[in-house]
């Protein structure tokens, strides 16, 4: 199978461990990755300024994917997933908007027929590789207690995602983690606050603290993410939150693909763990001898 990989802005610079684990997993699963070097920002950040700009940026990327013969486009960031999916959805559903945006897209020298299917890596793995992953598990991660954190834009708004998962409590991440044999904590998955960070930092940090506290109270060995922006809140701002609220989390934050990689028997130094920022001694000691 052959898929296009849409990296977006944050992953290739601030979440290289996420990207590395995806590429390594693809190798393991014999999934061919097509990299399109001309991809740019998905457009999500421009939406708050002018919605049309955000959609047009998404369409410009989708047109490029189509031109490169990509039918399946895999994303790693929830915001990229949401914006590309929304543009795709509106392109088919909102004729008025299409008539307005199409000439602008053409003026960029691009055309789009609407043939690209956008899926987040977690959804893609769940829908295409779940059985393969299940068959190839080499290490059962039974001693680990994991808190899966899906993030908001993975399955919401449900309208554009055609309800592939429960929008209030998405289950695909949990289902994939169950394959590893790890113990799964069922948490509330309150919004990480990432979108508020640039406007009112303290509010966003307090939002993130709710989930960190919950994971700690439930005895999690790690929180498992599928979005680099959630990582900015839970991992890259964890020390700041601890200081602001005078609390102590010291909670390891890992990506889904890193955990699946471990369960598939891939050595940890090939999964980018050198870039995980929290202390993971306890996490590794639980896996010793497995």
């Amino acid at each position, binding site marked *: 199978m052959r898929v296009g990989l849409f990296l977006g802005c944050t992953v290739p610079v601030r979440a290289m461990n996420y990207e590395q684990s995806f590429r390594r997993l693809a190798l393991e699963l014999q999934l061919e990755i097509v990299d399109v070097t001309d991809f740019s920002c998905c457009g999500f950040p421009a939406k*708050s300024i002018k919605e049309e700009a955000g959609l047009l940026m998404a369409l410009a990327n989708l047109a490029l994917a189509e031109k490169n013969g990509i039918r399946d486009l895999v994303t790693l960031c929830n915001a990229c997933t949401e914006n590309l999916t929304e543009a795709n959805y509106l392109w088919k559903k909102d004729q008025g908007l299409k008539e307005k945006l199409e000439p602008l897209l053409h003026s960029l020298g691009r055309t789009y027929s609407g043939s690209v299917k956008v899926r987040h890596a977690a959804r893609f793995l769940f829908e295409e590789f779940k059985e393969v992953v299940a068959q190839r598990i080499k290490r059962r991660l039974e001693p680990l207690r994991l808190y899966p954190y899906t993030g908001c834009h993975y399955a919401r708004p449900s309208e554009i995602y055609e309800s592939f998962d429960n929008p209030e409590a998405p289950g695909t991440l949990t289902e994939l983690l169950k394959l590893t044999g790890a113990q799964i904590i069922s948490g509330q998955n309150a919004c990480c606050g990432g979108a508020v960070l640039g406007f009112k930092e303290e509010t966003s940090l307090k939002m993130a603290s709710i989930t960190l506290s919950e994971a700690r109270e439930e005895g999690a060995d790690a929180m498992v993410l599928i979005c680099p922006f959630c990582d900015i809140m839970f991992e890259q701002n964890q020390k700041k939150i601890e200081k602001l609220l005078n609390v102590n989390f010291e909670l390891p934050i890992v990506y889904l693909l890193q955990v699946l990689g471990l369960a598939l028997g891939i050595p940890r130094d090939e999964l980018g763990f050198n870039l995980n920022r929290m202390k993971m001694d306890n996490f590794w000691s639980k896996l010793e001898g497995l």
Partner: protein
Amino acid sequence: MGKTLTEKELDFQFKYRIMREKGGEKIVRCFSCATCPLSCPVRAVDEEFNPRRIIRLALLGAKEEVLRSPFIWLCSACYLCSERCPQDVKITDLMTALRNIAVEEGILPSSLQAQLDLLYKHGRLYEIGEFENKKRFKQLLPALEEKKESVISILELLNLNSLIPEEK
């Protein structure tokens, strides 16, 4: 909160302006049931943000109050209220519509201005240069180049580059 709004400060056309904006079409359906503030993860930690209050103010015509308040920028766009709204107001899209109107009225928070500047310079939110590629190489990742032409064209087509302050 503070001051009382009087009729002469209200713009009764404001709701029609919102309804013409993509995402704002359904604002008049709201019957103030409070599902949105009770679902809101921002509201849970910060009382300054209250989607229902913003909708009521907008319907009343308190244009300046709505557009010039910091609270329209606090929505985290989690879409939880949109999923739950019994009137299908599409509150998250409505917040985007209000932000777009605010930008048209010349209001652009500094963090968004900074993002716009980055998009115009690099075609993405984070620069990719020699430093980043060296780090990528160490993680066995392929080198990337900044391809910014289409982003620059889009920002210029929609005249958004005019919102970026000239460098001194």
